[in-house]
C-alpha cells in the first residue's frame, strides 16, 4: 500500500467548498497517527492562489495543483484521467472526496480506473485498534448505518457527506508546499461536450450544503405559499426544501426534494412545515442536528422523532415566527 492521504479539493467557482476543509481537518489526526502526509489535490484550468493557503490552514502538508486548459470545466473524462494518472504515479494510501455531485461522479470513475475500494457518502472516518482505516456510512437512506472496511483494497477511497465532519479552526500560520502538475490529456480523452450550463435562479446554497433548511410539505396547500418559507429563510439564511408530496403536486421542483428519493441532507437545523414525517422523508433528513416540526395534526408521526414541535396551523405560526426570528437576529 502507498503513502499519503489525499483530499480532492473541490471548487465552487473560485471558492474552495467547505466540505474540503471538513475532510482536511479530520483526516489530519489520522495521518499524524500513521505518519503520513495530508495532501490537498486541486484539478482545474487555473486554481486561485489563496486556495492552497486555505487548505494548509486546515491541515494540508502539501497541495498538488493539476492544471490544464482542457480542465476548465468539470467533465468526468477529463478530471478522472488527470487524477487517476497522478494517483498511479504517486500511489497514495487514501483519497477522499466530498460527497457532492462532482465528488460522487469523480470518485466512482477514478476508483474504477485505479482499482480502489470506495465508500460513498460517509459520515465518519476512523482508525480501528489495528490501525486500519474505516468509515461509517448510512445505507437504506439512513435507516441503517454500517461500518465499512477495506481489507482487500490496494487503495482506499471514500466520499464524505458535507456538513457532518466538524472542521477545526483554521490556522493561517500553517503553510503547505505547493506543487504544480501538468497532466497529459490528449484530444479524444474527453468524449463528452458541455453544450450549456443552466443556472436556476433559486437556491443560494444547495440543500446538501445548507446549514439551515426550511421544508414545506402537503400542508403548504399551494405553490404560492412557499413564499412564506422563503421569507423566513431570508431572515435566518436558510435554504428552502420540500417533501415528495409537495414536489409531486408540482409546487416545488425535483431538485428541492428532501427524502429517500430526493436529497439526503444534514443541516444544523431542519424546520419541517406541514410535513407529516413519512419514513421516506425522515430517511432524507434524520441526521439533521436539530429538527423542528410545525404541523396542525398532533398525531403526525414527525412529532415522535424530532426535537421541538408546534401543534398549530403553519399559516399562523410561520409569519409570526419570521418576525420573532427577525427580532432575535436584530439583537445580534
Amino acid at each position, binding site marked *: 500500500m502507498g503513502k499519503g492521504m489525499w483530499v480532492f479539493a473541490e471548487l465552487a467557482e473560485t471558492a474552495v467548498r467547505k466540505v474540503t476543509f471538513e475532510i482536511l481537518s479530520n483526516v489530519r489526526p489520522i495521518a499524524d497517527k500513521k505518519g503520513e502526509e495530508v495532501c490537498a489535490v486541486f484539478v482545474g484550468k487555473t486554481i486561485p492562489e489563496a486556495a492552497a493557503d486555505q487548505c494548509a490552514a486546515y491541515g494540508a502538508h502539501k497541495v498538488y495543483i493539476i492544471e490544464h486548459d482542457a480542465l476548465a470545466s468539470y467533465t468526468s473524462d477529463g478530471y478522472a484521467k488527470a487524477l487517476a494518472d497522478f494517483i498511479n504515479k504517486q500511489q497514495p494510501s487514501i483519497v477522499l472526496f466530498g460527497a457532492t455531485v462532482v465528488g460522487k461522479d469523480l470518485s466512482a470513475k477514478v476508483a474504477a480506473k485505479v482499482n480502489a475500494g470506495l465508500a460513498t457518502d460517509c459520515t465518519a472516518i476512523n482508525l480501528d485498534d489495528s490501525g486500519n482505516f474505516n468509515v461509517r456510512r448510512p445505507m437504506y437512506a439512513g435507516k441503517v448505518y454500517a461500518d465499512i472496511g*477495506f481489507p482487500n483494497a490496494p487503495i482506499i477511497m471514500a466520499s464524505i457527506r458535507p456538513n457532518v465532519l466538524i472542521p477545526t479552526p483554521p490556522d493561517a500560520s500553517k503553510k503547505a508546499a505547493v506543487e504544480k502538475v501538468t497532466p497529459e490529456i490528449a484530444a479524444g480523452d474527453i468524449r463528452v461536450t458541455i453544450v450549456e450550463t443552466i443556472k436556476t435562479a433559486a437556491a443560494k446554497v444547495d440543500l446538501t450544503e445548507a446549514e439551515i433548511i426550511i421544508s414545506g410539505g402537503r400542508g403548504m396547500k399551494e405553490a404560492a405559499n412557499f413564499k412564506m418559507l422563503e421569507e423566513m429563510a431570508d431572515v435566518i439564511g436558510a435554504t428552502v426544501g420540500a417533501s415528495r408530496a409537495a414536489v409531486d403536486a408540482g409546487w416545488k421542483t425535483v431538485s428541492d426534494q428532501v427524502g429517500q428519493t430526493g436529497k439526503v441532507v444534514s443541516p444544523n437545523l431542519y424546520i419541517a412545515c406541514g410535513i407529516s414525517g413519512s419514513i421516506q422523508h425522515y430517511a432524507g433528513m434524520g441526521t439533521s442536528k436539530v429538527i423542528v416540526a410545525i404541523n396542525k395534526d398532533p398525531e403526525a408521526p414527525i412529532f415522535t422523532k424530532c426535537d421541538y414541535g408546534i401543534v398549530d396551523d403553519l399559516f399562523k405560526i410561520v409569519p409570526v415566527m419570521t418576525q420573532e426570528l427577525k427580532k432575535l437576529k436584530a439583537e445580534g
Partner: protein
Amino acid sequence: MNSIVCLKQVPDTEAQIRVKPDGSDVLLQDVKFIINPYDEYGVEEALKLKEKFGQSTVTIVCLGPERCIESIRTALAMGADKAVHLDDPALDGGDAFTTARALAEQIKGMEYDIIFCGKQAIDDDAAQVGVALAEYLNIPHANLVIKVEVSADKKKVTVNRQIVGGEEVLELPLPCVLTAQKGLNEPRYASLPGIMKAKKKEVKPVKAADLKLDAARIGAAGAKSKVLKCYSPPPRTAAQIVAGESPEEKAAKLAKLLREEAKAI
C-alpha cells in the same frame, strides 16, 4: 435503437430495515421488494426511445438472487422485450465494482446503443455501478440525467443533468451509459395484456462461469470494501411540544429555544 437497462431489486421505500442481532448484516425477511425506483425511470426512458425510433430492442440486465425474477417480469410487463438474469451465489456479497465488472462482461457481447442505470440503488446508496460500468466498457457516461434526446442519426445523445444550482446540457457519442434521476419521466404501469405477454418473454439465466471472470474478481472475493458491522441509528425521542396561548406566544418561545437551548440560530 437498442437499449439495455440495468435493474436492481431493492426493498420498498416503505420498508423498515432491521439489523441482525450480531450486526453482521441487515434482515431482509418479510420485506417487500420493488424495482429500484431510479432504474424504473431507465426502463421508461428506454421504452420511450423504442416508441420513437421503432425497430428497437429493450433488454433488462439484472444481477441478483432468484427473487429478482418478479421485478424482471414487472419490467417486461411494462414493455421491455427480453431479459438477462445474472443469478449465481458466486456473484453475491460483492461491492459495486464486482457488480459493474460482471455486468460489463455480460453486456460487452450484446448489441446496444445506450445503457440506462439508476443514479443509485436505494438500498446501498453507493451511486457507483453506472459510472464503473461505463469505465469498464470504455464508453462515456452522464450521471443524474433528467432529459434525453437521441439524434435522428442515432449517433449521439443530448442530455440535461442535474448539477448544484442548476442543470448542465451534455452531448455524448453513442453508445454511452446514462444514470437516471427523478424528473426524467413518469414510469408507466404494467397493463394487464402487458403482464400476460411478459410471462412468455425470454429471461436468459447467466451463471458466474458463463462470464469467464477470474473467481477472485467476482462476489465477496473480489470486493474491495466490506460491511464490518451494521446498526440501527440512535432513535430520536419525541418532540418537546412548545405550547402557548397564541401563535405569537408559541413562535416566540420556539425562536428563543432555538437560539438559547439548541443554539441553532
